[in-house]
């Protein structure tokens, strides 16, 4: 059975791109969220194997969402998607419980490597 993924990003473009990369690699994207609040809700509903999380989103940012998700599920496997120059935020996300990160612009191979590491 393929691994399930929840893709969280406020930009449709990014969600589509990440979904395509993951789907082509055999993952099943079971949900998408465009805000931190949605991410937390959908995580509870869907219990995906993996979450990709944008850092800057409206309505509760990605870091806060990581914190919320990890509160109920410390083993949640969350991969942060960050832009260049957001190192401090990535550090914060790691402290909050994120398991790995990739930096935009995405190269599919880098994303898949990170996903494999997170699912370890």
């Amino acid at each position, binding site marked *: 059975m393929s691994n399930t993924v929840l893709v969280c990003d406020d930009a449709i473009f990014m969600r589509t791109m990440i979904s395509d990369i993951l789907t082509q690699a055999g993952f099943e994207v079971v949900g998408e969220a465009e805000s931190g609040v949605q991410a937390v809700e959908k995580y509870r509903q869907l219990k995906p194997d993996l979450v990709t999380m944008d850092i800057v989103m409206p309505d509760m940012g990605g870091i806060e969402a990581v914190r919320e998700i990890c509160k109920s599920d410390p083993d949640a496997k969350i991969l942060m998607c*960050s832009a*260049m120059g957001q*190192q*401090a935020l*990535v*550090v914060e996300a*790691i*402290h909050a419980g994120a398991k*790995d*990160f990739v*930096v935009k612009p995405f190269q599919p191979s880098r994303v898949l*490597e*990170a996903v494999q*590491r997170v699912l*370890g």
Partner: protein
Amino acid sequence: MDLAKYSALFLAESSEHLNACNQLLLEWEREPASPAPVGGLFRAVHTVKGMAATMGYTGVADLAHRLENLLDALRRGRVAAAPEVFQLLFRSVDTLGIMVGDAARGADPAPDPGLSAELDRATGEAAAADPAAAAGVDGTRMRSVEVTLRREAVMRGARALLVVSRVEELGSVSGLRPPAPVLEREDFDGRFAFRVSTGASDSVIEAAVRGAGEVATVRVGEVAPEAEAGGRSRQIRVDLDRLDTLMKQVGELVVARSRLAVLAAESTDPALVEISDRVSRLVGGIQAEVLAARMTPVGEVFERFPRLVRDLARDLGKRIRFDGEGEEIELDRSILDEIGEPLLHLIRNAADHGIEPPEVRAAAGKPEEGRILLTASRDRNSVALRVSDDGRGIDRSAILAKARREGLADAGTEVLSDDLLLRVLARPGFSTAEAVSDVSGRGVGVDVALTRVRALGGTLDVRSELGRGTTFIVRVPLTLAIVRALLARTGAERYAVPLAYVAETVEFDPRAVTAVRDREALVVRDRVVPTVHLRHLVQGGPGQPSPKAPTVILELGDRRAALVVDALAGQQDIVVEPFDAPTGMPSFVGGATILADGAPALILDAAALL
């Protein structure tokens, strides 16, 4: 060899190890099954024993030796980690701390025979009772880990911390080089190292490191004992007095620089102007370096609190967990030395008044164990320290009623704002505790904390939600020693206003004068701002300011005040001198300084004016 000159070093290092012991004991007590802390405890006590023996402090060495025996029995599983054993360990570490202090002051105290006997009994009895277990396993070891990240890896700082957090799942990580803040700034070449105390094999450690991604090389090996002492660790211990003296001299240098700049500005000699500029830059560089050398992680203050909270909880019959966050945030040593006490009061307050007894918490549907969280975070030029509890919160209606009775709030006040709440709480003698307990009764905590924090040029805020908990927020400047100030003149006197509090300066406009609750106020940019005339403050008498008199708008959080002065006299770096206010000194004076031309000036305490 004259050992006396090593006694200060012995004291400092032993105290560090014993502090670490307290930490480890707390960790271990929380999770008695975890094997990690006892190894660390054993090593710390062993080190103290070795140092004490070298110094010839036989009493200290003797007690440390007995304690080490018990720890050895514990780590080999010959003695079970029972609650009474923890009590004994805590007591022994405390006693050892006292003896270390005494020894360093020249007395070599003999160990308490009662305590020694107890330690021996705890070690021996259990060993006799269960000789078969003597060959128990000791899984944890200290390993050194060196990592190089791939050259093409992006955000290497975050990646390095990811490596550390992966390894932390295997055991406790220490000695991170470069330290975390440097890694976070990505101020390193992709190579970093740390130690881990774990039962995991080297290949498991390596796999964890590689699992974090972007790792080029990993080396797991023995911890080199000398790496700590000299070799790779590029640090030396400096007596704090030296740094204080250095700071003071740099302060005087800064003042001299200002004086030179004044002379250069008056001169027509280009060589003088040039050398003045050069000196100015050099002094600026020295100032920054000395300030940086004085920065110390707040963790040094935090580390005493877990133990304190544990003991308080026992005395109060409560269950309280203490957590610290942001230990790596740095503050100037002089502020750090002063910040412990206010935090102590706030933490005691939280334990005493905030956290409810277990049965009350259970009845309210909360976990029986309360939590006190102490966090530090950097916020531009200040550091915010938050003491939060998940206790009962402050009952605003009770406080408001009391405030009305005591005339602190108008009868018409309906809502108690956080601001007013703090003012009421911080009133000397104010308490809402049903009974005054000896932990932090009489409301003295907030009062003392506020006074201390203000004296540091900081602020205190409170946020509280009934049933959910209370947070006190202490904000202090990063450093005290040298601040940039605006000089304001009234009559012949000059006063320094720290620039940190100055929002802007405007011209006094008599047409904008209004009144709020019988107090004079000015309308500045559509906001009504209470007004203070510096002339009235210092001379007592009234007197009309001239139209267009310079007016300094002070700002602290969301509070503002307008300070009307006779004239402004430029900006200057000033060295804040420790100030024991003579009796009768008005509260708006926060310190004194010497200006560039050698004249003394008083420093206005903006917080008191607001």
